């Protein structure tokens, strides 16, 4: 298990990155070396930040128009023809509108298609619940043969993409838009199904991924100031799940809080809860978005749903208090 023990107090002030930039840079590098790679979009060149890719590979960016079912079906057909399609579309539409294509054409057909859900969670905060993609992870988790990755920062986004390009099979990667500081080391290596312990601790565990990881790290600092040593686990792969790391956390810390920019029903929290009750039951608190969220920026909404560093620290303390 990689361990990066840093002092994270300053994370709040570190530069923030839109992971789409890392996405596009990495995709272009990969495409440079592998002619099979193509992009597939639904009028989402701009919202996926793919203009540079389009300029470099004009024939290899396939825009099917505003038609998500066709987009995913076309990707499956391109894969049949030996291409490696990276579908890039707002996560809300990609997953809600093309779910049966994802199930049948990609997962069940076992096609080498990479589904890249852009601006997921509440990145489109003030555009309302139609554009909030809080359900995507829970939806895809119910489908067999689907690897689900939620990177925490630009480094992990790039690493996950490089892995996905090598892997022959369906992958879903959530590409965050809301700015995040770098939390993984520069030489970070992504391994599917492997949790990353970003901070050690024996009193309580916080498991998160995506845009919430840095918040969890800051929460751990707040807890440390109160004498509580929190383990902070980043869980980039929601499926397959690192059950071993979860069971160890349950056994060694006795209490778990999960936090994610997604619904609190059936996502990362649900996956961890299932693993916990089936292996080592301990008190948990599942932080997430339990409803159609009101208008507001993603950051405002995360805070509102208890996922500010302070909110996560509170949840950790409250969960620890439940340990018998």
């Amino acid at each position: 298990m990689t361990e990066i023990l840093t002092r994270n107090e300053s994370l709040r002030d570190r530069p923030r990155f839109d992971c789409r930039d890392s996405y596009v840079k990495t995709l272009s590098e990969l495409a440079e070396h592998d002619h099979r790679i193509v992009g597939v979009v639904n009028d989402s060149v701009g919202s996926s930040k793919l203009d540079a890719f389009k300029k470099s590979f004009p024939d290899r960016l396939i825009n099917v128009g505003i038609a998500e079912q066709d987009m995913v079906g076309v990707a499956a057909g391109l894969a049949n023809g030996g291409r490696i399609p990276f579908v890039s579309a707002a996560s809300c539409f990609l997953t809600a509108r093309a779910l049966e294509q994802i199930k049948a054409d990609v997962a069940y057909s076992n096609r080498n298609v990479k589904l890249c859900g852009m601006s997921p969670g509440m990145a489109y905060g003030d555009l309302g619940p139609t554009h909030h993609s809080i359900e995507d992870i829970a939806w895809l988790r119910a489908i067999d043969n689907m690897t689900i990755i939620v990177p925490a920062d630009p480094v992990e986004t790039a690493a996950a993409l490089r892995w996905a390009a090598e892997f022959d099979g369906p992958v879903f990667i959530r590409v965050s838009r809301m700015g995040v500081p770098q939390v993984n080391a520069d030489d970070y290596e992504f391994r599917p199904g492997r949790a990353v312990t970003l901070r050690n601790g024996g009193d309580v565990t916080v498991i998160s991924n995506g845009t919430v990881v840095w918040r969890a790290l800051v929460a751990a600092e707040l807890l440390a100031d109160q004498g509580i040593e929190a383990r902070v686990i980043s869980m980039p792969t929601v499926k397959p799940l690192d059950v071993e790391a979860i069971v160890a956390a349950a056994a060694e810390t006795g209490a778990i809080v999960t936090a994610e920019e997604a619904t609190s029903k059936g996502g990362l929290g649900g996956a961890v809860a299932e693993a916990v009750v089936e292996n080592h039951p301990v008190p948990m608190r599942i932080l997430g978005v339990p409803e159609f969220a009101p208008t507001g920026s993603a950051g405002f909404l995360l805070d509102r749903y208890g996922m500010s560093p302070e909110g996560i620290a509170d949840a950790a303390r409250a969960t620890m208090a439940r340990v018998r």
Partner: protein
Amino acid sequence: MSALSAEHATIPVMGRLAPHTGRTELLAHIAEAARQIRIQDLKLVHYAGAGHIGGDMSAIDILATLYGAVLNVGPDNVEDPERDRFILSKGHVAGALYTTLAAFGFIPVEQLATFLKPLSALNGHPNRRKVPGIEANTGPLGHGLPIAVGHALSAKLDVSPRRTYVLVGDGELQEGSNWEAMMAASQYQLDRLTVVVDRNRLQQGATTKETNDLDPLQDKAAAFGFAVVEVNGHDHGELLDVLSSVPFRPGKPTFVIAHTHKGHPISYMSNNVAWHHKVPSTAEFELALEELEAAAHPRFAKEL
């Protein structure tokens, strides 16, 4: 750039004209409404720092005609089962719809100052649970037409004269759900259903032609069983005539191709794909405001 606040919510509330008002007066009323809605919408987007201004401007003449002189719906009968229904399928122009609803008294003008703000009822896409006058929570493209077909079917079952209107984007027509709905609309002979296409030939990132061409759109709609009409979507007279003609062809639903320009009539914005959801700078804002205010004469809109 100051943040959106009450002082930017300035649109005068436009009454509905008495029944049987003459055409000239109606058209003047629509033109003034459209002009005021544009000015207000520009302010919303500029001060809120977000919004879909290109598509707003493209659609405002259609909205002003519908709410100003066609739909039998106003603040007093917004829950009346027999009201006409208007569904904004291209929900990303919610700003234009909110402004129109304020202009015709459905919501308080001051409320516009909350556009996109935390906890506001006015988010970037319409929410019927929070805003009176909204019939469907749209935003994802390709949802409004099926809903409109459903409502038109309900009217037919009720043997009611209430009408159903739906405004769709042209890029939006790339969604297959629309064609499913169109097949059903013609199967059920929903001749009190009017689909209006905001045919500005631009979508989010490029022209419709470059992306996924819709032409020949008339042939497509006709082959799907619609009576097809083409109008200048910035000409209130043409719009008023066709939108008031229900049924347009007995037994057939109507497909109005309203030729428009995204960003119309703002000089630097009109027919420029960059303005799908760009926000005018202060200088751009001043210029647009000047142009819109000068557009007092209803005929201006016709110079397409």
